């Protein structure tokens, strides 16, 4: 059990709800964590490419998984280890693919919440990904699975609860190969803790991969710098050489 408990937290007036109004989650938020490397507790480790030296080494992390261990089915644990060995090849975010939920939340990039009564728009700096949380359409269905899924939200006990379904199986939870299937269901809670903090919880349910539901939990911090704004990190242009350089016939290259 992690030390952070939502029961001990008190929402401030700036983000807190009242009887008649939901909390105000508008703002630019970011996780401060090494969870994007590995959501389980982990020690510092060598870089996957020695050329990167200490800059590419994995920083240690306390982990964000309640109880620390992800309850994989046996075959899935084996697959996760295979993913880890081939992570440079297989991690979808290396190719700048959209990270999915919950990974988008704790990527080392800011994201912005724009909250209206009917929709909560969330724009993520990484890959220019985004999602719309529908607040008034509990019966909405997705015609197809998508990388960022279908998000349906509701206000509950002064917090935002979001059910995320219809995500493709292609996304991972982190850079260490933790994964899911297309049966993934994520139940998120954004819990105001004060003017500049949210507690983020997400319960992961996927009976194809895990033996039981499990929960991650971490704080999110407001980017309080004056006039802070998201900047482009479309990142496709940074992944193209990796993905496409071996294709085609570039005469300039051939002549070198």
């Amino acid at each position: 059990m992690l030390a952070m408990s939502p029961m001990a937290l008190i929402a401030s007036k700036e983000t807190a709800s009242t009887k008649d109004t939901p909390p105000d989650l508008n703002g630019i938020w970011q996780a401060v964590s090494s969870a994007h490397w590995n959501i389980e507790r982990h020690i510092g480790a060598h870089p996957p490419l020695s050329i990167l030296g200490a800059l590419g080494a994995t920083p240690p992390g306390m982990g964000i998984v309640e109880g620390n261990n992800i309850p994989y089915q046996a075959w899935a644990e084996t697959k996760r280890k295979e993913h880890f060995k081939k992570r440079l090849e297989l991690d979808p975010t290396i190719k700048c693919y959209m990270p999915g939920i919950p990974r988008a939340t704790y990527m080392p990039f800011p994201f912005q919440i724009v909250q209206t009564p009917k929709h909560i728009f969330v724009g993520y700096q990484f890959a220019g990904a985004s999602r719309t949380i529908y607040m008034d359409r509990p019966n909405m269905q997705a015609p197809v699975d998508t990388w960022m899924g279908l998000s349906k939200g509701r206000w509950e006990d002064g917090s935002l609860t979001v059910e995320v379904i219809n995500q493709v199986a292609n996304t991972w939870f982190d850079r260490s190969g933790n994964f899911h299937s297309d049966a993934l269901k994520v139940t998120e809670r954004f819990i105001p803790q004060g003017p500049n903090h949210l507690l983020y919880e997400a319960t992961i349910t996927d009976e194809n991969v895990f033996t039981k539901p499990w929960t991650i939990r971490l704080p999110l911090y407001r980017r309080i710098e004056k006039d802070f704004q998201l900047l482009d990190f479309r990142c496709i242009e940074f992944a193209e050489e990796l993905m496409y350089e071996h294709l085609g016939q570039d005469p300039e290259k051939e002549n070198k």
Partner: protein
Amino acid sequence: MIGALRSIVMLNMVGAWLLLTPPTIAEDIPKTSWGVPDLQGVWTNATATPLERPDEYANTEVLSEAQRSQLGEAVLEKYGKGGREAWFDLGLKALSNGQTSLIIHPKNGKIPWKTDIKKTTSLSGKSYFPWETTAPGAPFRSYRDLDTGERCITDGVGIYPQHPYNNNFQIFQTELYIVIMQEMYHEYRIIPLDGRPHLDPPVGQWLGDARGYWEGDTLIIESQGYLDTKGWHWAVPWRAAKSTLKLTERLTRTDEFTIDYSFTMEDSSRFSEPWTARIPLTNDHAERGVTSGDLYEFACHEGNYSIPNMLSMPPESHLN
């Protein structure tokens, strides 16, 4: 039906001069709880009206209903055959206000390219689209020869109906921000309305550094600080991001169904004068002949098979 009624009203009102005058605003337009026009909703700008005025309409500023129908038929003929109609969502209806071109300034309805610039933006090579004859960058020897759209990055600036599909936009609005979410390439802009200055020095952005403010009932968005993309190929050259560009967009909710949208391109490095296009957005998708509904994720890069496929072909096959 609704569109037809509005057409009649517009045609009664419209004259050549009115295309350049401020839009008429209905008294009962939706307003936000804080009192400004409500721009929220899912909008389309799909249309059969061309950006530039066709030569045959050189002396015409307002089209008749029959002429508008001809424009729709031309789009269908050009894009809507050969199986493509199954996945295209074509704007088959010309703007009901009868604009001869989306460009309303200069008066001839043409992009005022500087002569020398126009030469350098002429295209060469065979297009990968069967309905076009040329493409930038061909022959394709590397992914770098493909345009930014084929690379799933962006097709450039402005709310512009370039594509034969995905011409859909959703707007979210608070007192401090407006979000313009575009279905194509899942591009979004989160535009501050709080009076803050542009980034100085700028950080080059694909869609610029945007700031918005209300002028009466019109939201004005001014963008500058674009990424300089010299050496990149663009499917539509005028939409290329350039650090010299200043873009001014105007959004006015004129009735329950319509946002009167226009943009002005100002870039003395490419254009001999600023030019303006007017492209009303509608939430009545049937009025433009396209499908309605929610925006869905367009995971272009994640499913980009066209780059490997095109680069697997001999470069010579890309040329005429």
